[in-house]
């Protein structure tokens, strides 16, 4: 009996980590864009939704009846959304210098546009996506794990480690950190700050697309999928500490696990509420988030 509770708990935990990885990838987008441009991008949920479509339409054979394998669709989706990010950065750039209320409204306005362009292009009703992996759960020590969930966790982990290595080692990554820390000095040192920001935006959008395409077989794909995940990714971004890269990862995982545990053990009806209440409590105790805010220096 006690074994049973342990395995249920472990299963809930893995589910939470899976959804948490999704939130973390979305939160990373918020965080990277915030620390480099000082922009709180409320359209990021919609960018996640568009990214999901950019990949899944190839996998579902929605483009000229051409059906491509899942890994290829995954890569295409990330690249297309990253390219889209380069365009978006240009639109968002003037918003980054406004005060928060206007920034909020401007990005929400863009979210409206993306939402409705998606409805016009792909229809308002969504579709379920078949997982490329078998649907039968793998059972390890009495814990049933969905292969797609494990894929989501694994790939997300690789992407997060890759991002950290890139920021720490690569020249471009170092330039990004420098530009985030001090725009003016970085600019004086010959770093093309606007170009770096565009790359940051592209990476944020690419990560969001990766999250969406990985989660697509678990969730239902439709144009309104962005709002809920956008809000939770934003919560994870705040929870971990705005602008912090490890913060976004920790915040996403904590939020996902919190949600799964409260759904499994406390009340499935109040799952959203409990997660928000805990988040508010965390902010009361540590107003700068779990890991701490990275202060940004706006010019």
């Amino acid at each position, binding site marked *: 009996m006690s074994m049973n509770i342990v395995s249920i708990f472990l299963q809930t935990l893995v589910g939470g980590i899976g959804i948490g990885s999704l939130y973390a990838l979305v939160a990373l987008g918020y965080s990277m864009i915030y620390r480099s441009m000082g922009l709180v991008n409320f359209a990021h949920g919609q960018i996640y939704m568009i990214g999901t479509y950019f990949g899944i339409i190839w996998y579902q054979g929605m483009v000229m009846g051409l059906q491509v394998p899942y890994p290829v669709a995954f890569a295409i989706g990330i690249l297309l959304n990253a390219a889209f990010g380069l365009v978006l950065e240009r639109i968002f750039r003037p918003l980054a210098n406004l005060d928060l209320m206007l920034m909020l409204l401007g990005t929400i*306005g863009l979210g*409206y546009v*993306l939402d409705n362009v998606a409805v016009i292009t792909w229809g308002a009703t969504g579709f379920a996506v078949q997982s490329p992996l078998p649907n039968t759960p793998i059972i390890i020590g009495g814990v049933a794990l969905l292969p797609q969930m494990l894929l989501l966790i694994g790939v997300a982990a690789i992407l997060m480690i890759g991002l950290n290595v890139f920021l720490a080692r690569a020249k471009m990554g170092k330039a990004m950190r420098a530009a985030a820390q001090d725009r003016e000095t970085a600019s004086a040192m010959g770093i093309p700050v606007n170009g770096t920001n565009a790359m940051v935006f592209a990476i944020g959008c690419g990560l969001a697309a990766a999250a969406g395409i990985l989660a697509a077989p678990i969730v239902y794909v439709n144009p309104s999928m962005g709002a809920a995940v956008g809000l939770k990714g934003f919560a994870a971004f705040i929870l971990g500490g705005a602008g912090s890269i490890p913060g976004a990862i920790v915040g996403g995982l904590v939020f996902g696990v919190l949600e799964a545990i409260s759904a499994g053990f406390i009340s499935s*009806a109040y799952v959203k509420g409990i997660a928000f209440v805990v988040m508010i409590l965390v902010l009361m105790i540590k107003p700068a988030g779990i890991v701490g805010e990275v202060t940004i220096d706006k010019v």
Partner: protein
Amino acid sequence: MKNQSSIIKWIVLGVGAIVVLAFPLVAPNRYVVHIVNMCGIWVLMSMGLNLCMGYCGQINLGLGAFWAMGAYAAALLNTRFGMPIWVNMPLGMVLAGVVAALIALPMLKVKSHYLALVTIGLAETINIILVNETWLTEGPLGISGIQMPNLFGIAFDGDERYFYLVLICVVLGYLVARQILSHRIGRSFIAIRDDDAAARAMGVNVPKFQIMSNAIAGVYCGVAGVLYAHMTTYISPDIFEFKNALFVLTATLIGGMGSLVGSLVGGYGMPLVQEWLRAFRNWQLVGFGIAIMLVVLFMPGGVVGLGQKIEQAGGIRWPWARKQTEEKPKGGPNVS
């Protein structure tokens, strides 16, 4: 000159009043009146938001919860105990105001985007309670069968008659808001918005006024909620979700944040323009999104801000504009 301009002002006011009062009689159909009534409800919420966000600088994205408090108070009191609107109105206002003041307590600890998130989170939590506590709220099915009001023997039982009730509330709401702003409370709000540290140094009890600004926003939304419940006779939790709070925020910013007239312009203007463009379906919403971005980038003061800019540029003198008493300091920063 002074007499002439004040005569023009009274003529404009008089003609305006006649046009407004005659509106339900000349409106093309009942649906238009219904939309205008709904606009009145948006305006009340927008004025509440303006007082706390535009004047006191307290970001609040949780208006939907206060609105819901008023609406649910009215709906429950009416369907369970048969209470009329004039009983429900003060009770709804008090409930929404108290809830708003309580919500303001955790808000005092955080600022800017954290505050935005906390208010969204609190409002979402209240919405989840409305969905789940079925014994009280009937859950997602909502409460139906709320009666339209009957005041002093006059039945406000159609959109045309209800129009006058909403109108009275909007006018009273506007006058009260103006009174608050010219009072010490309003000046404290503005001082806190402009620089809370300086306000504190000048002896303004900052937390007290921040809580007060939220409570006032709550009361305004409470009025809007009671009016809404008695107007539509049916309410459900999805009406009070985040998207409608966002709609009020958008209307306020487009009208002019930090200006009561902005609330009137945005609250009446935006829904009407939206109705007018309804035929374009999703393209309408795309256009709406683009319009929001253009407003944010090119006229951040909203419609009212744009009007002021034109006036300052010497283009037009509005007949109702206040007489300029002060010369703009020479060499000072130009508002542009």
